[in-house]
């Protein structure tokens, strides 16, 4: 059974392992290695960090980072979501995304955004299923292994937060 819990420092080695797996696919991020816990901790919101586990084994994680320090953008956050390669196709992403969205809204976030390599069809599909819209493509925005890569920008505007 899949269980979604809050991430703590104890889970970092497993979270980093899954992160590194994602990096190795070359379809998840421009990052080339998982950061140290302290650096990751500083860069991510503390109120929306989740892990998914099956029988106690961590098989996925999701977290949010602020996109700007400006108060006007306080309710805008960037999604990270990673699933253990061996546990793909088991709806773990679905469950993580569900809870992540719930948590983001209960913490006053009105816009979630995500930058995804267009080749990462599974991730785009997951986001679209959960109400994200594809806004466009940042064409050849960064270089990876000597190839220019594009990034699709996706956004989900909450219908319950920031509607006053």
């Amino acid at each position, binding site marked *: 059974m899949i269980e979604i819990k809050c991430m703590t420092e104890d889970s970092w080695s497993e979270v980093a392992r899954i992160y590194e797996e994602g990096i190795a696919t070359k379809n998840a991020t421009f990052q080339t290695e998982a950061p140290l816990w302290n650096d990751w901790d500083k860069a991510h919101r503390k109120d929306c960090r989740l892990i998914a586990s099956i029988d106690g084994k961590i098989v996925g994680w999701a977290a949010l980072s602020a996109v700007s320090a400006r108060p006007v953008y306080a309710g805008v956050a960037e999604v990270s979501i990673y699933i253990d390669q061996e546990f793909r196709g088991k709806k773990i992403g679905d469950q993580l995304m569900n809870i992540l969205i719930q948590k983001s809204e209960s913490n006053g976030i009105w816009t979630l955004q995500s930058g995804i390599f267009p*080749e990462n069809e599974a991730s785009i599909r997951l986001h679209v299923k959960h109400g994200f819209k594809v806004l*466009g*493509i940042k*064409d*050849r925005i960064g270089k990876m292994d000597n190839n220019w890569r594009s990034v699709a920008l996706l956004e989900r505007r909450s219908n319950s937060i920031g509607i006053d």
Partner: protein
Amino acid sequence: MLFITPSNIHYRPATSVDFEKIGQLLHSCRLPNHDLNPQLQYFFVAEMGNTIIGCAAIEVYGNDGLFRSLAVSDAFRNLKVSEKLLSHIIQLSKEKELSGLYLLTTTAPEYFRKKGWVQIERDTAPHALTLSTEFASVCPASAICMSKQV
């Protein structure tokens, strides 16, 4: 930033350099990609910037063509990409003076019916075409065969 609008989508014949990306797209759309060969298929691709978001191909067998590998990335639905690809393929078929186009589909017979394709028995397709990899081994026996005059 290229916004998701039809005017930002460009259509062109594929080159052999595109085949790796085409293979990935077909894989993610759960379509056969093991028998791709630049010598055998004429592919058209739909592109935003350097991202291939859709593709379609014909394989030529004498005067007939096998239409295959019509795929559009999930994020780019409702932009009439498949219609555009299909019309490019039909135009190419005219240039190659083909008389008939044939396809196999497991998922989209209704779509093609609306576009003027007619369901036929698989055995009535031209012999050379039935020997193609797609007919002979890649597409399941349950796939529906359809045809259209060029």
